[in-house]
């Protein structure tokens, strides 16, 4: 049973949905970040999870930023959705749990979002496993 199956709901539409002006403020912040990163500065992250954004604010933000060339999904501790917005280097990253509940979401400004990068520790562990793979194929040949 999901929440949608419960027929009685408080009508909070008028409260939650109206844009509050937060989206416009965020756009200015993002513009700054794009300039910083564009001129070689380090990666910037805007945490959306703990900002008092209404559903209307988020809709507005998604509309304004649009969608760009890249979409990716990561499977680690539940899915993480990543897409590049219509602005190169401005990424929308949504972290979900296994039940596809949104845990938090961020705007990341950088060349590649952190969650997409492979980590040296994992690469080293992978290299070890790869050796086993070579050994197995060696024994199969002989």
């Amino acid at each position, binding site marked *: 049973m999901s*929440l949608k199956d419960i027929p009685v709901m*408080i*009508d*909070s539409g*008028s*409260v*939650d949905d109206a844009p509050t*002006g*937060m989206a*416009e*403020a965020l756009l200015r912040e993002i513009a700054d970040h794009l300039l910083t990163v564009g001129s070689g500065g*380090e*990666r*910037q*992250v*805007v*945490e959306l*999870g*703990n900002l*008092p954004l*209404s559903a209307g604010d988020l809709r507005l933000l998604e509309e304004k930023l649009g969608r760009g060339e890249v979409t990716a999904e*990561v499977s*680690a*501790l*539940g899915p*993480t959705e990543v897409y590049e917005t219509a602005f190169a280097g401005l990424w929308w990253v949504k*972290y979900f*749990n*296994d*039940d596809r*509940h*949104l*845990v*938090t979401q*961020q705007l990341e400004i950088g060349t590649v979002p*952190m*969650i997409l990068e492979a*980590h040296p*520790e*994992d690469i080293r*562990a992978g290299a070890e496993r790869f050796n086993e793979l070579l050994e197995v194929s060696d024994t199969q040949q002989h």
Partner: protein
Amino acid sequence: MKEHDVTLGEELRRQGISRRSFLKFCTAVASSMAIPATMVPAMAQSLAQARRQSVIWMSYQECTGCIESLTRSFNPTVENLIFNFISLDYQHALQAAAGRQAEDALEAAIQENYGNYLVIVDGSIPIANDGLYSTVDGHTNLESLRHVAEGAAAIVSIGTCASFGGVGAAAPNPTGAVGVDQIITDKPILNVPGCPPMPEVMTGVLTSFLAFGALPNVDHLKRPMAFFGDTIHDRCYRRPFYDQGKFAKTFDDEGARKGWCLYELGCKGPITYNACATLKWNGGTSWPVQGGHGCLGCSEPNFWDKGSFYKPLSAGQWGTAEGIAVAAAAGVALGAVSAVMSRRNQNKLSGGK
């Protein structure tokens, strides 16, 4: 190699959990604690290098609601990763062992990790008549707490009972119930009040202890600032209605249906410090005020002894209880200051319009 010698990163990699998962976990925790997202990679790195933390969980005069809340945390896959980071060496409700075996396990954990284990306490401790009102294995809770605290690196009091005495200490408090910090004074103590407390707070506290090697910053009631820095009222989505003077007068009037401010129906949000308004409950589904009921102030000391839950704060009920008057007044004053500040910020953001 002993279990505690392996880093969390190595141990979890054996289970097929990648560094990306660490990063995602830390992202979720950082978000709930308002830790800057740019610090997340360093946090994940440090957490991966930490050792598994021995945790001893003591339950005294309690209802098990706290552990119910924490084990039903909203992000099963994300939040429950914390159980891979700790070794829960003793917990009444969850452990398989019982009786003598369980008590022996407790002693073994104390000896093995003396000086390094973390103690979590839920429930108040009765101290009247030498604490005879609650005993486990022939020892009073009072004796037990002193014994376990001796070798603890730090103590986390979970829930309003362990923090401030809670329901057990409600007037006339026949058992003389008190919170942990009224008994133990020589250890770092963190209070995570709430009836029950929010699961995200527990995850956040444990993670920052592991990643940063210290308990997070606290306020004057030893509560972590990251979660208890603002009042419910400061972060309430109904706050604009308070500012406009729009109040629900009964639970079924037009104002209630339109989601107006619940101040006049007794909401204790203005003097209650907790994170419900931002983190919400049950997977971010809702929280009391969103469900149409005022905040009860369950994370504040003595919340049950402060008169009706349904009388407005201005009726003075919350100012009368012993020792609370000053705190409540300070809370209201701080609330007023931050209201002014947030309005100033809003003005700034909207270019003064």
